[in-house]
C-alpha cells in the first residue's frame, strides 16, 4: 500500500470539508481520519517485524537539481507511531466534531492538514522532506491557536511561532549543511537518510550539526529550559487540538533523534550525550516540581509532559538498545495517555462552568462514576504505575541509563515519585473531596464516551501486551544507536559485565 495515500487522505478530506456546508465539515474530517486509521491498522497488521530495512517504500525525485527525494517508508521505528497518530487524530477530530466551532470548515481543515503533516514527518526518509513536514505540521497549530484560542492567544501564538521558527531555521540550516558537506567528496548531492548514513562526516561537523537538530527538537518537545512558550500556548489552545499537539507532535521531535540525529551524527550524539542526559534529567525534575505546584489542569499535565519527555530523551541518550527500545515504547504510551487526558480536561471544564482550575473543582465522582474510572486509569498510567505499559517503557529506559550512568538513573527516580503526587492530586481534586465551588457533576455523555472508552481500552491492551510495540522496535532501535554506542565506547565492555550470561547456558 502506498504510504502517500495514508499521508494525504486526511488533507484531502480536510480540503473537502473546506468546501462543504458548515454542518458536515466536521463529519467529513472524521470520515477522512477514520479511513486513515483503517489504512494505518491494515499497514500495522501487514508489517513484517522480522524484515530488516524499510517497507512500503515510495521513492520519487522531487527536486532533482538538489537531489531531494519524495521518499517515504516504514520500519520498526515509526510503524507504531504512525498507527498511534492515526488513531489519536481520529479520536481528537471525532471529539471536536461533537462540539460547536466558529468557522468549522477552516477549523477542521487545519486539523486534518496537521494530521497529514505529522504522518508525513513520521514516514519521511529524506532529510529535506522531513524538515518540510516538520514545519508544515506546526503551521495549522499557529492558526488554530491564533484563531480559536482562549484568552491571551496572540501573545501565546507569537511566543510559539518565534520559538519554533528559530528551532526550525536551525534545523533547516543543519539539514542543508548535512547534504552539502556529505557531497563534498564528489558524491552526488543527496538528502536520503539511508544514503547519508554512509557519509561519514567529520566529528567536528557532526557536533555543530547535531546542535542544530537538537535545538529544533528540544524546543518542540519541549524540554527544560526551552519550554518558555509552552505554558502560554497550552493555556490557550483549544483542547482537542492541544491533545494531539501535546500527545503526538512532541513525539515527532523525539522520533527525529532516533531516525535522523543519532544514526547520522553518531559522534555528535556521543559527544553531547551527557549534556542531553542532564537536560533530560533537569526536565524530569523541573517538570515534576512545576506539575505539582500548578493549579490549572492543562499546565499540570503540560509540565507532566515535560517530565515524561525527559524520560524519553533519557532513554534515547542512554545510547543503548534497551534505552532506545524503552523510549520508543514510551513515545507510544505517552501519546496514548496524553490525548485522553486533555479530552478529559475538556469534559471536566464543561462540568465546572469552564474553569480549569483544580481549586474550583471537586466531588464529581459520585455523579460521574464512569468518567471517574476513566480518569483514574489514565492518571495511574500517567504516573507509570507498575502494570501499565508506561512502567515497562520506563523500566527499559532506566535500565538503559542505569547500566552506564547509575547516578543519573537514581536521580531520575525522584520524577517517578513526584508523578504519583501530581497525577493523584489532579485526580482527587477534581473527582473526590467535597463538590467544588464551580462543579456541576454529571456523567460523561454517550458521544464522548464513544471516544474515550476505546482509548482507555487501548491503554489497558498495551498494559497487558507491551511486547507488541517493543518487538517492532527491537531491531531498528538497536541499529539506530549502534554507531553512537561504538563512538562512545569502542570496546563496548558493558556487554561482558553480566556474569550470568557465562553461568547459564
Amino acid at each position: 500500500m502506498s504510504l502517500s495515500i495514508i499521508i494525504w487522505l486526511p488533507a484531502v478530506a480536510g480540503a473537502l470539508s473546506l468546501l462543504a456546508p458548515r454542518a458536515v465539515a466536521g463529519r467529513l474530517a472524521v470520515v477522512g481520519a477514520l479511513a486513515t486509521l483503517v489504512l494505518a491498522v491494515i499497514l500495522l497488521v501487514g508489517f513484517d517485524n522480522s524484515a530488516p530495512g524499510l517497507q512500503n517504500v515510495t521513492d520519487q525525485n522531487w527536486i532533482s537539481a538538489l537531489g531531494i527525494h519524495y521518499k517515504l517508508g516504514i520500519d520498526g521505528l515509526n510503524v507504531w507511531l504512525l498507527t498511534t497518530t492515526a488513531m489519536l487524530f481520529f479520536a481528537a477530530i471525532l471529539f471536536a466534531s461533537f462540539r460547536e466551532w466558529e468557522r468549522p470548515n477552516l477549523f477542521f481543515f487545519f486539523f486534518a492538514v496537521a494530521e497529514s503533516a505529522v504522518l508525513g514527518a513520521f514516514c519521511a526518509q529524506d532529510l529535506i522532506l522531513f524538515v518540510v513536514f516538520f514545519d508544515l505540521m506546526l503551521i495549522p497549530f499557529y492558526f488554530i491557536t491564533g484563531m480559536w484560542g482562549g484568552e491571551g492567544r496572540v501573545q501565546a501564538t507569537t511566543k510559539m511561532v518565534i520559538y519554533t521558527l528559530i528551532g526550525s531555521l536551525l534545523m533547516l540550516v543543519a539539514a542543508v549543511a548535512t547534504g552539502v558537506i556529505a557531497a563534498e567528496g564528489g558524491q552526488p548531492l543527496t538528502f536520503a537518510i539511508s544514503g547519508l548514513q554512509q557519509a561519514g562526516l567529520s566529528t567536528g561537523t557532526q557536533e555543530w550539526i547535531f546542535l542544530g537538530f537538537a535545538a529544533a527538537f528540544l524546543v518542540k518537545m519541549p524540554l527544560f529550559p526551552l519550554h518558555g512558550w509552552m505554558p502560554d500556548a497550552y493555556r490557550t489552545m483549544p483542547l482537542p487540538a492541544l491533545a494531539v499537539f501535546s500527545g503526538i507532535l512532541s513525539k515527532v521531535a523525539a522520533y527525529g533523534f532516533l531516525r535522523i540525529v543519532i544514526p547520522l551524527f553518531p559522534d555528535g550524539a556521543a559527544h553531547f550525550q551527557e549534556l542531553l542526559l542532564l537536560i533530560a534529567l533537569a526536565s524530569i525534575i523541573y517538570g515534576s516540581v512545576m506539575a505539582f505546584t500548578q493549579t490549572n489542569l492543562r499546565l499540570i499535565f503540560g509540565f507532566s509532559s515535560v517530565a515524561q519527555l525527559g524520560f524519553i530523551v533519557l532513554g534515547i541518550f542512554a545510547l543503548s538498545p534497551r534505552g532506545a527500545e524503552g523510549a520508543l515504547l514510551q513515545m507510544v504510551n505517552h501519546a496514548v495517555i496524553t490525548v485522553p487526558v486533555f479530552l478529559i480536561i475538556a469534559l471536566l471544564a464543561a462540568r465546572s462552568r469552564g474553569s480549569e482550575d483544580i481549586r474550583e473543582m471537586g466531588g464529581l465522582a459520585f455523579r460521574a462514576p464512569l468518567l471517574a474510572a476513566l480518569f483514574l486509569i489514565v492518571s495511574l498510567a500517567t504516573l507509570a504505575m507498575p502494570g501499565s505499559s508506561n512502567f515497562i517503557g520506563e523500566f527499559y529506559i532506566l535500565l538503559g541509563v542505569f547500566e552506564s550512568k547509575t547516578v543519573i538513573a537514581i536521580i531520575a527516580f525522584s520524577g517517578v515519585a513526584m508523578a504519583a503526587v501530581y497525577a493523584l492530586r489532579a485526580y482527587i481534586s477534581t473527582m473526590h473531596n467535597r463538590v467544588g465551588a464551580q462543579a456541576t457533576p454529571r456523567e460523561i455523555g454517550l458521544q464522548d464516551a464513544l471516544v474515550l472508552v476505546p482509548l482507555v481500552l487501548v491503554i489497558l491492551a498495551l498494559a497487558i501486551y507491551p511486547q507488541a510495540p517493543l518487538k517492532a522496535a527491537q531491531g531498528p532501535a538497536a541499529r539506530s544507536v549502534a554507531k553512537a554506542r561504538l563512538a562512545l565506547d569502542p570496546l563496548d565492555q558493558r556487554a561482558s559485565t553480566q556474569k550470568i550470561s557465562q553461568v547459564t547456558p
Partner: protein
Amino acid sequence: MTLATSAWLVLACPLVGMLSIALLGKKLSPRLAGTIGTLAIALAFAFAVVTLIKLQQLPSNARLETTSLWDLANVGGVKIEVGLYIDPLSTFMILIVTGVSTLIHLYSAGYMQTDKGYVRYFAYLNFFVFSMLLLVLAGNLILLIVGWAFVGAASYMLVSYWYRRETATAAGIKAFVINVIGDIGLVLGTLFLFRTMGVLDYGQLFSNIHVAFDKDAPELVAAMLLILVGAFAKSAQIPFHTWLPDAMEGPTPVSSLIHAATMVTAGVYLIGRLHPLFEWAPTAAAVGAIIGAITLLVAGSIGLVMTDLKRVIAYSTMSQIGYMIMGVSAAAYVGGFFHLMSHAFFKALLFMAAGSIISAMGGNQSLNNMKGFRKAMPFTFACFLAGGFALSAFPLFSGFFSKDTLLYEVGARGGWYWALYVAGYVGAAFTVFYTWRMIFRAFWGQPCKEAVVVMETGDAYHPAQHTNPHTGNEDDPSTQEVEDPEVGFPGHEHRYAEKTWQMRYAMIPLAILAVFAGVIQLPFGITNVISDFLHPTFADSTVAYMPEDSGLEAFGLILSSVIAIVSLIAAYWIWVRRPGSSAAIQARLPWIHKLFVNKWYFDELNHAVIIAPMAAVGRFAKNTFERIVIDGAMVGGATGIVRAGSSVVRSGQSGYMRAYASLIVLGLIGVALYFLIESA
C-alpha cells in the same frame, strides 16, 4: 486439574469478580454485588485448597512449579513473563489471603449494606485480593512489582473510599505516595540485581546468586537494602509507617483486610521469598531485623496511649509486623510465617469486633467515650476477648505459640540476636498492656449512653447527624465536620454483629482459629505442620532450620507466660481496679507520654525533611525561576533577538499574527509548487 491450572484459577476468580461487579455496576442490586464478591473469593479459596492438595502430591524435594502465559516484554535480553511461582511458601500465603479475605467479604456484606457505594466497594475489595494474590504468586521480580503496585493502588482506593472526606483523600494519597516510594526501592533494587545477573525470574536469581556476587558484596547489599525499602513501605516499618494509622480512614472491614490478610504482610512475604538473596547479604538482613525490632517497640509504645480504638489496633499491627520482619530477616522463617498466620486470624477478628462496637457507637471511635459494652454486646465481647488473648500471647492461645516460635528461632542464633530476643519480650509486655487497656476501657465499667441504647432498644445508637471523627476534637462530635450524606459512613443504619448474621458468621470461624490455630505447630516438636510444610521452600537456607534447643524453648515459653499473666494482672489493676492510676503514671512521666502521643514525631520529621523542602523548591520554581529565567531571559531574549534582527518581521507580527502565518504558508506552498512543476 493440574497444579498450574488451579493456581491460575486462584488468580482469575477475584479478577473475574472485580470485572463483573465493575462492569455491571449499578445494574447489580447491592446484595448481589456482595454475593458475587464474596463467592469469587470463596471460589479462589477453594482453588487454593486444590493447589495445596496438588502440591502435596509432589515429592517433597520437587514441590515447585513455574508456569507462564505470555511475555510482557521480551526484547533486548530482558525477559518478563506473566508467570507464576508455586511452591509451599506461595501456597501458604494464598491459603491465608483467600481464606481470611472470604470471611472479610462476608463480614463486609453485612457491615456495609446500607452504604451507597456498596457496589464500588466490592469491586475494589476484589481488586485488592487479586493484587495481593498476584504479588504472592508472581514468578519474577517485575510481576511481583506489578502486584506490589496494584496492592498500593487498591489500598489507596479503599482508604479514600469515603472520598467526600478530605481526611480520607489525604490519607489515601499519603498511603499511595509512600507505597510508590517503596515501589521505587524495589525497582532500583531490581535494576542493581539485573545489571549484574541479567535475570529476573526467582529460580535463576536463587541458583545464580552465589556465582554472581561475593557474599555480602556491596552492590548486593545495596540492592537488598533498596528492596527492604519496598518491604518497609508496604509493611509499615519505621520510617515508612506513617501511612498506616492514617489508613484507618477506610471502612473498618478494609482495615481488617489491609492488616490481616493482605498488604502489610507483603513485606514479610518478600523477605521470605527472597531469603537466598538476603542470606547472601547478611548486612542487609541485619538491617531488616533491627528495623523490625525498633518498629515493634516504637509502635507498641504508641499503641499504649492512642485513644482512637482503630488506631490502637493499627499500631498493634505495626508492632506485630515488626516481629515478623525481625523474624524472617533473622532467618526465623517458621516463626515468622506462623505468626503471620495467627496474626491474620486474630487481627481480622479484632477489627471486625471493633467495627461492631463502632457501629453501636454511631461511628464514634474514641476509647474515651466507650464504656461497659460487656453486657450490651456479649458476642462482640467474646470475639474481642478471643482476639485479645491471642494478640497478647496468653498461654495456649495461637499468638502465644507463634510469637514464641519466632523469638525462640531468633534467640537460637545467638550472638547479637540476643538483643532482638530481649526486644521481642519487652515488646510482648507492651502488647499485653495496649491490648487489655483497650478491652478494659471499652467493655468494663459503667455502660456509656450508647451501650445503654443497645441494651434497651436492641438497636445501635443513632446520632442526630454523622460527623467525621478524624476532624475536630476526637471525643466531641459537635466539633467535628458534618459528613456529606451522599457518600459517608455509616449510612443511616448501623450494623453490629449481634444483629447481622453475615458479621457473626464471619467472626465465629476467626474466633475459633484465633484460639486454637496454635495447635498445628506446638513446641518441642509435638506438632510440626508448618515447619514440615514450608521446609521445601527453605531447604536451601544456610541457617539452621528449626533449631533444636529445648532448654531455650522451655525458657521462652515460661518467660512468655509470666509476662502475659503478670502484665494482664497489672493492666487490670491500672484500668479496672484503680481507674485513676493511668493518669497518675502520665503525670509522673509527662515527656514520655508526650513523645508517645505525638507518635515519636515521625510525621513532623517527614514534613520537615521531605515535604517542606519539596514545597519550597516548588514555590521557588513556580514563582521565581519560571518567571525570571524562563519567561524573562529565555523568552524575552529570543523575542528580543528576533525583534532586533528584523524590523520587517516586527511590523508584520505586531497584531497581524494571522497575516504573518499566512505569509509563511503561502511562501512554503509557492516554493513547493515551483519545484513540483520543475521536477515534472
